[in-house]
C-alpha cells in the first residue's frame, strides 16, 4: 500500500547520546488477579525517540503503555516517567504526568462539550490559561491536525478520523513532552486510518517523544526508530524497524510477521 506521508528525519548518534531519559522501566510486573500480564519489563526511552510497540493481542502492549501513563498500577517494579517515580503519590508525579499525553483507541472525547471546549478544558483548568489564550492555543493545534473548521461542532457530528484527530489536538494542547498512543487507528474505518497516521507522522517530525501501540506495520516502518515486539508480557525484540521487518531474531516475531504480511 503506497504511503502518502514522508519519513521523519532520524536523530544522529551524538544527539541520542546526550539526551535525557524520559521513561525508565525496571523489572515491571503486573497481574490481573492471578494472571500475570507483564513479566519483568525493562525499558528505557530517550527524549525524542519514536517507539512502536507491536505484538499479538494479550501480549501486554496496551497494559505497558497504560502503566507508563499511570492509568494502571503495576504490582512490582519501578517506572520513572520524566524523572518521577510513579509509585510515589506526590506533586512531582502529578507534574510529570501532566507532561504525558495519551490518545486512546476509542477517542474518549467528552461528548457533552464542543470540540473547542474539549481542547480548552484542561489548559484552563490545569495550567490556568484564560479562555482567550486556551481558545487560541486550541485553534492552533486543531489547525495542525486539520480540523479547525469543526471547532464548534460536537464530537458526535464528526467522523471517526476527525474525532481521533481532535483527540490528538486535545492532548497536544497540554504541550506534553511524551505522547502515548494506544492503538489510535484500530477503531477507524480504513479510509480514515491514513489521515490520522499522517498527523502522527507530522507530530514525530517535530521531535516529540512517541510511544505507539499499533498494528499498522507500514506506519511503524516509516516512523519508528525502535520496534518493540511483545509476547506474553515480555519484550522479545527491540530493533530498528529495518532490522525487525527483515531479520527478526526470534521465532515468535517471525511467525507474527509472516501472519500479517500476506
Amino acid at each position, binding site marked *: 500500500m503506497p504511503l502518502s506521508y514522508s519519513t521523519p528525519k532520524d536523530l544522529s548518534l551524538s544527539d541520542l547520546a546526550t539526551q535525557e531519559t524520559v521513561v525508565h522501566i525496571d523489572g515491571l510486573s503486573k497481574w490481573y488477579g492471578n494472571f500475570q500480564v507483564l513479566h519483568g519489563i525493562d525499558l528505557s526511552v530517550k527524549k525524542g525517540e519514536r517507539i512502536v510497540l507491536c505484538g499479538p493481542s494479550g501480549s501486554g502492549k496496551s497494559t505497558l503503555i497504560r502503566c507508563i*501513563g499511570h492509568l494502571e498500577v503495576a504490582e512490582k517494579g519501578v517506572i520513572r516517567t520524566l524523572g518521577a517515580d510513579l509509585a510515589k503519590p506526590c506533586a512531582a508525579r502529578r507534574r510529570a504526568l501532566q507532561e504525558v499525553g495519551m490518545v486512546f483507541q476509542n477517542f474518549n472525547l467528552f461528548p*457533552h462539550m464542543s470540540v473547542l471546549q474539549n481542547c480548552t478544558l484542561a489548559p484552563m483548568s490545569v495550567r490556568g490559561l484564560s479562555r482567550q489564550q486556551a481558545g487560541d492555543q486550541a485553534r492552533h493545534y486543531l489547525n495542525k491536525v486539520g480540523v479547525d473548521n469543526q471547532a464548534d461542532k*460536537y464530537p458526535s457530528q464528526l467522523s471517526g478520523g476527525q474525532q481521533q484527530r481532535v483527540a490528538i489536538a486535545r492532548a497536544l494542547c497540554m504541550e506534553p513532552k511524551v505522547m502515548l498512543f494506544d492503538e489510535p487507528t484500530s477503531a477507524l474505518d480504513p479510509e480514515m486510518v491514513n489521515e490520522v497516521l499522517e498527523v502522527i507522522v507530522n507530530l514525530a517530525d517535530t521531535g516529540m517523544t512517541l510511544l505507539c501501540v499499533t498494528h499498522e506495520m507500514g506506519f511503524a516502518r516509516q516512523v519508528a526508530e525502535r520496534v518493540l515486539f511483545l509476547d506474553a508480557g515480555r519484550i522479545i525484540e527491540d530493533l530498528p524497524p529495518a532490522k525487525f521487518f527483515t531479520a527478526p531474531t526470534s521465532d515468535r516475531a517471525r511467525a507474527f510477521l509472516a501472519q500479517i504480511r500476506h
Partner: protein
Amino acid sequence: MSVDDLLNLFLNRELLERYGPRLFDGLLVTGKLVAISFSLGMLLGLGLALGRLSGNRWVRGFTGVYVYFFRGSPLLAQLFLLYYGLGSFKHFWQDLGLWWFLRDAWYCTLLAFTLNTAAYQAEILRGALLAVPQGQREAAQALGLSRWTSFGKVILPQSLLIAIRPLGNELILMIKASAIASLVTVYDLMGVTKLAFSRSFDFQVYLWAAVLYLLIVEVLRRVLKRLEQSLSKHIG
C-alpha cells in the same frame, strides 16, 4: 337528571367557591414540600451515591445500610417513627435544644421525605455514575484534570443526563407519596381535601384533588421532556 344536575355532581359551584381557595393553598403546600425535600434529597443522594462507590469499606457499608433501610421500609412508617416515635422523647430533645424541630409536623415531614428520597436518588445516581464509560475518566486523568474537575465537568454532567428519566420518575412518585403528609396534620393538597370532605360530605372534592395531582404530574412530565431534549442536543 338534567345537565345541570350532572354538572353539580362533579363541579358544584358553591362547593368550589367555599373550598376552592383552600385546595389551591394545599396545592402550594404540596409543591413546597416536594420541591424542598427533593432538592435536599438530591444533594444527600449524591453524597450517598459517592459513598456507595467509595473505596473505603466502612463508608460503603454505612451508606449501604442507610439505603437498605430507607428503601426497604414504607414512607409512612418512617414518617410516623420520626414524628410520633422520636417525638415521644420530648424532654431528651428539649435538653438538646432540638425540640422546636421535632415537635413541628412540617419539619418532621420534610426530614422524613428528604431522607427517603435521598435513598432512592442515591441508587439512581450511583447507576448513572457507573454508566458513564470508564474511558471518560481515563481521558480526564490523561489530561491531568484534578479529581474534582474531572468529576464536576466531565463525569457528573454526563451522568445527570442518564439520570434524568429515573429522577423524573422519582419526583412524580414523591408528588403522589406526599399525600401521606396529611396523616400528620400537614395541610397539603390531600390534607385540605380531607378537611373539605369532613365538612361537606361531598365526594367531588376528592375528584378535584385527583385532577389537580394529575395536572401537576402532566406539567412536570412536559417540563422534564423539554429539559431532557435540551440537555441531549449534543447526542448525534
